[in-house]
């Protein structure tokens, strides 16, 4: 059972949310040409065992002397020893992380925000839709669901990537496909010879599936356009707006709703999100610039 932690106990350094703790890189897994998964261990044993996160929450990952980036946690929430961040090297901080090796130290603050509301979805069908790096915050959710598989109805993951080599967690995707606990639909934008799956955008996959809208909870994380089209499409299929959850991303500086960078209409993505129900953001979700 996933215990939704009391908010106060979740944050390491609760009273000092701006102060990071150090963590050591224990393993680096190549995911694609510009994406790697970093397995981290918090250095302080007491903090390590006290650290808990909900699937969908994020850490502020700090490269000493360079800066911080908000990155979702992609490891199994039941694993108290290690945590993992899947990082695409696109900005100054993440490119600095690309130059790091096993044994190097990072700073961590977190976990911050509200994750996927698993407790509200028990007994329901779960549809997860991920695009590109958007699978990273969904992976802890998959672990949590598979650990309590009996509490959920049908579980489906739809995942779209640019090309077959850009797909994350390929071994695990294969394992999830094989053990039959959940349905897996993967598509790519463009293909190479070895690919025998569907080609196109991830929203096309929704057409391949007959969902039961009144008992399905949907978790969406991907690029902005994907989020939007998946949301519109599922709303048309009569999925309830309060059972459609979208994880958003923004420039963040503090993680605790102070710095103002992630203001999203009346919300702050860092502390009110990053996972929002469509219901709570419907006024601003469709706006072009917000």
């Amino acid at each position, binding site marked *: 059972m996933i215990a939704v932690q009391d908010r106060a106990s979740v944050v390491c350094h609760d009273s000092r*949310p701006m102060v990071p703790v150090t963590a050591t890189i224990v393993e680096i897994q190549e995911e694609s040409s510009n994406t790697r998964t970093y397995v981290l261990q918090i250095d302080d044993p007491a903090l390590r065992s006290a650290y808990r996160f909900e699937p969908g929450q994020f850490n502020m990952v700090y490269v000493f002397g360079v800066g911080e*980036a908000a990155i979702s946690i992609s490891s199994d929430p039941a694993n108290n020893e290690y945590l993992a961040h899947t990082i695409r090297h696109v900005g100054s901080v993440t490119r600095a992380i690309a130059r790091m090796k096993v044994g190097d130290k990072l*700073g961590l603050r977190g976990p911050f925000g509200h994750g996927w509301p698993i407790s509200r979805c028990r007994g329901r069908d779960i549809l997860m839709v991920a695009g590109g790096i958007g699978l990273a915050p969904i992976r802890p959710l998959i672990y949590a669901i598979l650990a309590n598989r009996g509490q959920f109805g049908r579980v489906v993951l739809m995942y779209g990537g640019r090309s077959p080599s850009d797909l994350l967690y390929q071994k695990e995707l294969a394992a999830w496909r094989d053990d039959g606990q959940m349905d897996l639909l993967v598509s790519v934008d463009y293909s190479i010879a070895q690919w025998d799956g569907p080609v196109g955008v991830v929203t096309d996959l929704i057409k391949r599936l007959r969902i039961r809208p009144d008992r399905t909870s949907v978790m969406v994380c991907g690029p902005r356009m994907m989020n939007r089209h998946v949301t519109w499409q599922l709303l048309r299929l009569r999925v309830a707006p309060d059972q459609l959850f979208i994880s958003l991303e923004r420039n963040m*500086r503090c993680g605790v709703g*102070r710095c103002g*960078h992630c203001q999203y209409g009346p919300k702050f993505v860092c502390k009110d999100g990053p996972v929002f129900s469509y219901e709570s953001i419907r006024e601003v979700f469709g706006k072009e610039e*917000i």
Partner: protein
Amino acid sequence: MKARLMRSEDLAMLVNAIRRRGYEVVAPFCNKGRDTYYDTVTDENIGRVRLHVPNPYYPPKRFVLPPIERLLRVKRANGAYDIQATYEAPKRAIFGIRSCDVAGIYHLDRFYLGREFPDTYYARRRRELLLVNVVCTNAELDISDACFCVCTDTGPAARDHFDLQLMDLGAGELLAVAGSSAGEALFEEPIFTRAAQEHVERRRQILSEVRKRFKTTTCWFSATVRYVSQGSVPERTWEEIGNRCLECGGCTYVCPACTCFTVSDRPTGRDEIERVRIWDSCALGGFTRMAGGHNPRKSVHDRRNRRFFRKLAHYFIQRELSMACVGCGRCAAVCHGDVGMPSVVEMIRRAAALEEKIEPVPADGR
């Protein structure tokens, strides 16, 4: 609240009494002309402390939220990092803070201390801060053309959140009102004498007189708050506002209620860095830019839209219990494009009212 009377020539004695209690006293000083600035009171400049000076361009916000504030120090040794949070909380008094700025600091209190993660850096500074408020009564010196605290209901006399409030009753007399126990403790000084009902009455008269001396009194917020909260401000109004914005960020840096910051690292020596937070401005293009270059709020009118939404929408008023505007008029004075708060309120109100008018009345007459 307790009130006492003091002579205006004893002002320096009051300042010295606060200094003797261990406070670093900062007060607005006047250069030649109308330039004023907050500076620490010393034995040399105490003779230049005045009750009536134009409100300085830079708000006293920096005494609780410095433009650059160190959060922590990081030292590297043998591949390990030592992280130490650093706090700075001098015992400080702001002497002569205006009512609008008192409201600004109260707004910051609500924002930084009022929710799930109280900001320790802010809290420590704030705990050591003493506010000696001066009521703006001199129409020539205290009140500028841009002041509109009568519209935001934050002035000319603050009702609360100060430690001591001074008001010039004329004839060399000042009425002092204590707003906290720290302020009341100052009444032990021999400069204070008992105040009578007559003085309170005179205070009331002067205040009702002063309210007529404000030039900007048509900054009607209530309608604008409604339009902004409902999202019924026409898009072209935001575009007009955006077209006049020069993206200098000046309005946010002089605003006593603006809270945004960015966090950055700076090296302080070999293997030593300090992490600082720096005031940031939502007017600047890079404010929301993310890694990889995508910017969800690229165009200037959308950035302006977000700023005034943040300041005026009822979602935020509910959270912080006050608008993020205190009517000090600094944004109006600093803005080259004349899109400070009073002009924006005016533009929104006019445009939205016009919009409302041309909406057809439903057939059933509801």
